[in-house]
């Protein structure tokens, strides 16, 4: 009997994502009177884009206010528990991104899932150049097919006016992602 060939992954016998079946946070009926949280990931134009969408949620969808806007210090890693905790105390819905790099796109999706687990409907914005890695992270986190919002790449080189325009374009997707009117 020849020797067995050893597995170099450490995953031999480990079931692939036994999918604990992520329960999404309940979607809101609408945004009226809700407190909005924004979490940017330091990527250029991320804070600006989220801020512009936040304003539109207030002016056009009657959200109460943006009550928390923080920057995730390490874009490459999912948000720490204390940061997630602050959002769940001070907000009703969260908007985060922009995933536009190798590690931060994956992490943005991981953040969205963490917010959902904390009971907050989340809208995650990723550049459409990173769909594969964002999907891979969703699967890794036991939430295959997790819905996030895709926006055309690149975001970092847009001017301020172009970012404002992009915010307007994304607004319906954001509203759909966090309310009962969300798509399939």
């Amino acid at each position: 009997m020849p020797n067995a060939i050893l597995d170099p992954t450490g995953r031999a016998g480990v079931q692939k994502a036994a999918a604990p079946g992520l329960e999404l946070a309940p979607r809101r009926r609408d945004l009226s009177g809700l407190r909005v949280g924004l979490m940017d990931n330091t990527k250029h134009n991320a804070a600006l884009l989220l801020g512009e969408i936040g304003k539109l949620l207030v002016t056009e969808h009657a959200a109460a206010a943006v009550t928390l806007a923080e920057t995730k210090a390490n874009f490459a890693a999912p948000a720490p528990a204390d940061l997630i905790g602050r959002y769940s105390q001070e907000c009703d819905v969260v908007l985060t991104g922009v995933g536009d790099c190798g590690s931060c796109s994956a992490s943005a999706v991981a953040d969205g899932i963490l917010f959902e687990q904390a009971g907050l409907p989340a809208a995650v914005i990723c550049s459409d150049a990173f769909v594969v890695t964002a999907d891979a992270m969703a699967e890794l986190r036991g939430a295959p097919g997790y819905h996030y919002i895709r926006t055309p790449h690149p975001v970092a080189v847009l001017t301020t006016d172009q970012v404002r325009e992009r915010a307007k374009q994304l607004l319906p997707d954001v509203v759909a992602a966090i309310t009962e009117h969300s798509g399939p």
Partner: protein
Amino acid sequence: MTAEQTETESELDPDAAQTAIEYCYAQGWSDGLPLVPATRPLVAKFLAAAGRSPDEIIGRLPQLDRTVTVELAAINAGMAGCLPEYFPVVLAAWDALMRERSTTGGGWQSTSGPAPLIIVNGPVRAELGVNSAGGVFGPGFRPNSTIPRAIGLMVRNAYGIHPHELEQATQGLPGRWSICLGENEEESPWPPLAVEAGLAAGDSAVTATLLRTCEFVDNRHTGSAEQLLADFADTIGRSGAWIFRHAGAGIVFCPEHAQLLAGAGFDRAAVREFLAERSGRSTAELAAVGKDASDDNGVRGPGRGSGGRPPGQHGGNGGFQRMLPSADRQHLLIAVAGARNAGISMVVRLFGGWSGTAVPVIRP
């Protein structure tokens, strides 16, 4: 020790070997080149050579829920084509890389596709046959080729970071997973890199960092140390790979350049002082490429009045902007390697921050 030498050629079974290699490809374990199928007896030799607990966790990426143990490292090193006696060097290289923030964060997934630079000092070079002379960036030498490949396989297999999936390199650095060199201590005018980093002379040690890119300086044209260093300052200060407010670099000097500099009284610290002051670009030159200012996160971009970026602390006119944050060792790694046959040295650009340290090669 080399491969099993007791077999006679007629006892080899190349058909079985081919089948096993194809099996490894089919599992998705390969970086594209054939793997040595790892078996329990082979891995036992690796573990014996290192003398560390197989269960010891040497790397962890919580965001991916993956870890690297000494045993997984041994399996991947065996598959990479390492000999068991290389394994302590593989582990030292891994430990050296783990001292960087990027390697425990998102570095392996980066669009930059950074490459480890692994530099070996001390007697282990001769014992293993690590090339430190001609053609030192490869190929042609088994330890130089397989030690960095082992690191790449650990990232691929133990961390599960595959190209086009969690690994998002836009193009990747040429020579990724293949840059490992011995320092040419015998022809260097300066103390070994590991000694500069605080280890004892005669210790075997590994220094490692991630590279953003590299480009050589070919200067066989001047006998002036200042002119030679000015050529390096120009290459180090290029704007292309310069994306944050400051950036680190390194130079793998060929013996000829190092000896010329030492002859003019330059030690490593003096080289760093000279280059820290002169490597960079004027604000006007950086403005011409849209990189004259930096935002609150230290990312460069166009200066005032273009696109809403904060003016940044370098928004002035005409001033010279230094690329290196200081003349400290961790911002400009200096090693000596290659043949003494020409004045050709490699400038490297650091991906993140080098720890400025070296890791001893530990053998039981």
